[in-house]
């Protein structure tokens, strides 16, 4: 049984906020909305000491502080241990530079993706667990840069890395790719080696470092209109 995750929601569009809190998140077992606010300022004024497991915030919150800045503020104050960024824009590369010190996890979801409760659940739990999680809709439109470090990966390794970026566990990946968990672990180890990440370095979460490098070394393929 998963532990209950207290979540703070910050979203300026009232309809979306209402539906997110009452319509969707209430359907997720083990997820509880601790409080909901329209703006960053409202949160900081009305609940200056509020702590929760996850902050779920829209990036664009109007004229005041944006959601990313709010997330950085709460994460650095250890008031949340995970952040899920919601946006109408496809900018997952933001996560590549997000600070993960102290085990803070980050997720990036498009607003149109939250209706997929599985994806929302993965993002919330992945962020709370200190992972980097990217909307699957977005990773579908990412491809490795030609000269980047991902160019050394095999297609299987790329596939597994993409699923890691989507917040999937090894078990989950193994089920999806019809592999044993041990095989997946082996592929993950190969990925870590191929990306020259030292898993024993202090303060490094190898899985998070792999996803961060994935985000830095990919670009969108979707043509601009």
């Amino acid at each position: 049984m998963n532990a209950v995750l207290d979540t703070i929601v910050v979203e300026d569009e009232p309809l979306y906020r209402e539906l997110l809190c009452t319509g969707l998140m209430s359907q997720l077992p083990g997820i509880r909305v601790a409080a909901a606010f329209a703006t960053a300022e409202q949160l900081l004024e009305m609940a200056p000491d509020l702590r929760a497991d996850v902050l779920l915030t829209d990036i664009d919150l109007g004229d005041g502080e944006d959601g990313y800045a709010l997330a950085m503020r709460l994460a650095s104050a250890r008031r949340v241990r995970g952040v899920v960024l919601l946006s109408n824009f496809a900018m997952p590369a933001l996560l590549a530079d997000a600070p993960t010190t102290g085990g803070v996890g980050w997720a990036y979801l498009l607003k149109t993706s939250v209706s997929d409760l599985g994806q929302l659940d993965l993002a919330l739990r992945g962020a709370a667990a200190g992972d980097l999680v990217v909307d699957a809709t977005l990773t579908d439109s990412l491809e490795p840069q030609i000269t980047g470090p991902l160019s050394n990966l095999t297609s299987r390794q790329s596939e597994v890395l993409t699923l890691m970026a989507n917040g999937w566990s090894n078990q989950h990946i193994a089920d999806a790719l019809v592999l044993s968990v041990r095989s997946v672990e082996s592929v993950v180890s190969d990925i870590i080696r191929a990306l020259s990440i030292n898993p024993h370095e202090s303060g490094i979460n190898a899985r998070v470092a792999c996803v961060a490098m994935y985000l830095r070394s990919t670009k969108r393929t979707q043509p601009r209109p």
Partner: protein
Amino acid sequence: MKENHDWHEPRLTPFVILALAGVLFMATSFDPWEFDPWTFVIAITATSLLTLTVEASALRIPLDRLLQTRPRAQWFGHYGLASALGSITLIACLEIIGLSQQRAGFVLVLVVITRAANTYIIAYGVDELISFRRDADLARAQLKPSLQLITYVNTRLDKLTQDTYRHDIDTINDCVMKPLVALESTIQHQTSAQAAREVESFIDDQLRPLSQRLHPIAVKVGLIAALAAEGIDVRTAPVVREMDSRGELLDELVQVELFRWITSIGATGQTTGASPSISLIIENRALRIDVTTVVPAELDARQEISGMAVVGPGSITAPLRGQFIDQTAVGRPQQMQDSKDGARLHITSRWTGENDPPVWMIALVALGAAPAVSFIANSFVGPKVIVATAASFLVPVVLYILMQWRQRRRRSDASLGLMALWWVGIGLATSFTVVAIMVVFGSSITLGSFMAEVARYLMRLSLFGGVLTLFGALAASARTTVAEVAEQREVALAERWRTLTDYHERARLIAEVLHRRVQSRLAGIALLFHLDQQSDALAQLREITSELLPQLLTALTDSDLEHAAHLNTVASAKHIHIEYRESPALNILRSEHPRLFGTMVDECAANAYRHGRAQRMRVEVTRDGNWWHVTCSNNGKALDENWRPGLGARQYDDAVGPDGSWSMSRVGATTVVAFTFRASSVENDDQDSPHSTNGAADLVR
């Protein structure tokens, strides 16, 4: 009195003029005695040349340490010293060659004094001419072309901006309004799941790229992240990335224009199949952007004005945050030299009095004229000469002061002709006075000597004084022209920035309304479909197509940015002034049920602002046993006849609980929302509910 004279670096010109005048004077006034004519001419010419050489050398004597760096002191010191040494040389030479003609000692002193006075007078006039020429050149060669360029660029910018405005309106109409109306019609006959997918596809495929293209508000979180979202790789140092993510790399305006430029390269790359490679380097207080693989686009007027500049093939620079310099405001246009646009340089024919020579300068002019009272070769100085000399000094000075006083009183500029007449009058008055004094003291004045005196004063007083005043008027005129052109230039620059910032503000508003009010609402509508709340979803969609977007288009067509900004506002309680009628019941409710009370007031205020554009709201609380009554009255406009409770009304239902009720009505010019609820029925909810949502929720649908 304020001194407008510019004390220029001492120069030889006054001494050259004095030397020529001296040769002329000696040739016409001296008796050559035993010299033959050629020897006489050579002698006086050589004397003047030697004097000039001494004066030129004297001007090089460094007086900085003695006179520090004050220009006025330097001016007086250099000219005075050079004149004194020159006069001594002149007198010595004349003595040596035998042309001194045994003049008295005081006459020699007078020579030194009058030469110094004349030097100062000529130097002062030369200074005024230099000031005039400098300011006229500045206006003609720099400011005027600069103003013309700014005006020209402003015209281009205006046209570009107007075209963009029209294009934006067409784009919103064709790419948002019409497709949404069509979507509304299509999804009426679809299942909720199908409708949700349609709405999501519209957001993903059309609205998101469009709102980002109209104004890349995504750059708010960083240029590099926004470029990555567009599929453009950027190579740069970690420090640049860090500055960018902290918003410390570029000014917002520059950031947006740079984003537009780089994404236009990305578009080129997609057309040609090449992938642009972009690197960012900080160099000389600017961000250098190098593009390889594809040919970058040229900079447009807005980008140039934003400080971006081409520095090489495929390379541009953009000013770092706070380092902006308007390059087009300092450039000199090649194609604009003969343009009739912009300010013209004209030297006014009016006399403002602004640069009139000071009174002491006119006193010097009078002093220079005084020894001409026919005693220059006379060793005897009697009362007649003293009184006449004093009069010839005082009369012009007094009349000059009178002339200035009159000019100041009139407060309007006189013509230069009137000023010339004044000086003729001063010359005549002085000469008449001097002649009258001489007659009074018994001198016999012939018509010829009278005319000679008059002519002398007209030459020495009227001409010198008039020329000094004319040169001063010219200098003042050029200075005024410079100030006017500089002001027009500043106004044109301010106008440019207003156009540019208006454009960005408008573009930002369009994008934010599309992004925040339409796209986010559509995302909510998609959720409503996912949750099988089809009628609510359609009502929300109808509000976008029949209210929000038409209002946006009208506001943009009318350039009513204030209205557009209002559309962009997600209403909240902070937009309205709330008054509370103090009562014990109010205090109890506020302290015992803060979240419930806060939600009611917050929602009421947000709806009053959003739907009624109310400015004030009054809150009253009463208690009747177990029942609470909360009334929120606002001064917003009347409710639409077709209003009906919508999704947000459920929050009120939740707030008042199963036993309570709420109503909305119009009483006179006031809209009243009244809540009635039982304390016991809401108590548990208020204390236990972990997620009472704050902020704005819609009430009227």
